[in-house]
């Protein structure tokens, strides 16, 4: 499996250092680093299809730090309600790391602005945007389009969210060479932009990465899953 350890580092902990590594990889070799990350996610998801493993759980990801077979799921598939530990207690470890990050974020800019880094596949430099300046995905899309001239966000549904109910529309988008925005959320996961209400996105987005639709394939299944659960 190509360079899974590196990508696993990037995927796993959202550490500032490792993400910069991937940026360098991007600049030097185009999209290799990130596509590997996407491959890794795809692997894990197909293996865990019947479980309710929480991909957001940092502990899950950090447990693969030893040299086990990386194609195995990082933790046992969870059975509902087992072990018999209450919800608030399960999150002790996850909350610990989240609190640290939230504190850093709060210390950084207060509630006045919400700057996040934006990178684009193949672009030689990163930009920063203040998410609080916009009120919808369309506005953000317009602003990003100005920043990266050969960039399109694709079509949005009537509510300003990508129409995930339409599987074929989504697959068309992802199979094209159109660019698709993705973002890293509070838990360190990479998500497709557009599947949650705008405000929720602003609150949880830590950085943006604009990549080719074909590279974003690995992110799509989760979004579809969420949509199915909601319907």
């Amino acid at each position: 499996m190509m360079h899974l350890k590196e990508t696993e580092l990037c995927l796993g902990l959202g550490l500032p250092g490792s993400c910069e590594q991937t940026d360098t990889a991007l600049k030097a070799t185009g999209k290799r680093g990130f596509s590997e990350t996407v491959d890794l996610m795809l692997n894990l998801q197909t293996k865990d299809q019947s479980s309710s493993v929480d991909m957001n759980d940092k502990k899950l990801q950090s447990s693969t730090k030893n040299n086990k077979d990386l194609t195995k799921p990082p933790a046992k598939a969870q059975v509902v309600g087992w072990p018999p530990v209450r919800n608030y207690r399960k999150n002790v470890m996850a909350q610990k790391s989240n609190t640290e990050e939230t504190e850093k974020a709060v210390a950084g800019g207060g509630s006045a602005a919400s700057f996040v880094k934006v990178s684009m596949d193949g672009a030689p430099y990163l930009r920063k945007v203040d998410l609080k300046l916009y009120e919808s995905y369309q506005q953000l899309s317009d602003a990003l389009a100005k920043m990266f001239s050969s960039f399109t966000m694709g079509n949005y549904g009537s509510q300003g969210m990508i129409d995930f109910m339409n599987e074929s529309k989504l697959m068309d988008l992802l199979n094209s060479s159109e660019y698709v925005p993705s973002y890293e959320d509070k838990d360190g996961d990479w998500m497709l932009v557009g599947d949650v209400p705008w405000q929720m996105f602003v609150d949880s987005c830590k950085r943006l990465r604009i990549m080719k639709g074909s590279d974003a394939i690995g992110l799509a299944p989760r979004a579809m899953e969420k949509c199915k659960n909601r319907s």
Partner: protein
Amino acid sequence: MTQSFPEEVLEHVFSFLTSHTDRNAVSLVSKSWYDTERWCRDHVFIGNCYAVNPRVLTRRFKEVKAVELKGKPHFADFNLVPEGWGGCVDPWIVEMGRVYSGLEEIRLKRMEVTDEGLEMVAKGFGKLKVLVLASCDGFSTDGLAAVAANCRNLRVLDLRECEVEELSCHWLSHFPDSFTLLESLNIACLSSEVSFSALERLVSRSPNLKTLKLNRTVPLEKLSTLLQRAPQLVEFGTGAYSAEGLDAYSSLAEAFSGCKKLKSLSGFWDVIPAYLPAVYSVCSQLTSLNLSYATTQSPDLSKIISHCHNLQRLVVLDYIEDTGLETVATSCKDLKELVVFPSDPYVADANVPLTEQGLVSVSQGCTKLHSVLYFCRQMSNSALVSISKNRPNITCFRLCILEPRSPDYLTLEPLDTGFGSIVENCKQLTRLSMSGLLTDRVFEYIGKHAKKLDMLSIAFAGDTDLGLHYILSGCDSLRKLEIRDCPFGDKALLANASKLETMRSLWMSSCFVSFGACKLLGQKMPRLNVEVIDERENLNSIPENVPVEKVYIYRTVCGQRFDMPDFVRIMGKDKADVYNLS
């Protein structure tokens, strides 16, 4: 039996009976004792809100000062009861509001509480002194604001492990400035900030405050201020126990040393070990210490525990490791209760060296130990046998081996003999939770020996219906039985139908109990509600021999309930039948 005592004398005698089991027993002696008793019972305990209904309560007891109600079954704690199942307290509040104007204490557990309900409580019970909501949900800080604003006599507001919708941080400000009666405040379950200034003012004007359990968002730097305002505290729960630098250390240590009555400490989220010694001055006073959010390593945990010579209750994460538990065994000779939670329940391999040995050490060193909840990754029959022989005084034994069906890790055999030894030696055992690889044999031992067992929890265990049969036919004192993922089916259940009327409830999920058996049981036993909880579609077209997802069986004097969601069916009762006690 003719009435030889005047009623007043009987009432006076009954006033010495405080436990509800004694009161219930006394009310069964004769009709006149029943009548006398019901007029003077003022504390009512209802272990299953659907066993009776609000009208039954108010018709029987006329002057109630304190009521305790429990709603959802225990496995709701682990997400096994779907959202919307029931257990809403509002109808109770409406009826009690109508009759019990002098109500002083409300204690609810696993009930759904709404903001409207809290508003009714706040406005309907002017004498309310105690409001304890344990593992409840459905309400928001708006409901709490109503309580704060209106309950002029409130002494206790305890939100124990509730899920609260946190709309505003200002609900605490709704306690009027003239309100000075607060004795106990527990807001540890809230995840958002509360207004610190409101909290500080409230603490400052509450001279009787004995219990204060903060939530995670209260920073360490503010603790000394609060402790200085309330040095009379007996129970204190910190917020996040970390800070940048050590500037806050000396004032914190000084503040703690001023708390001469402090007996219980909890909180300790995000612990920075350097701050732990700030509590050393009170350690020798402590009888209860909850470090279950303290994600620090064993040496730091052991150090603080080694100062706690009078500790009776310890709750801690498995970060304590076997070595830390040895420290417990040597330092805490008065320990009665030990709880060890897993820090990383979903990782397959052990992330810390905590094994069965830790528990064995504590069972050897702590002669007063009677209650255990222990999560670990390996167990052996020999360890269980040792524990049972060391501590025959154990009354509550809950062991969770994280991987289901784990055998004895030394011999690879089932853990039947180990648990068998527990029930045989610990003759006062009232509560047992088992895990690991277990065959029908263990149930035979339990049925034979566990005569005082009141509550039993079983998961991923047993081979055949015989297992369930041993339990139901052998455990004379059994009142609560909860089973998940066991190969128990219709036979044992139907053969022991009458036993179920002697119990509060039976829960079985992911077992082999069929729709047909549930229907038959419901038909045969009019005083049982056989609730099938099943979220599949087209329930009506599922054949009768197919197993149900979940079944919850409980005795009741009220028959049907009418607040069921569509995934709950009460089986075997004609819809038109309503069992009304009139």
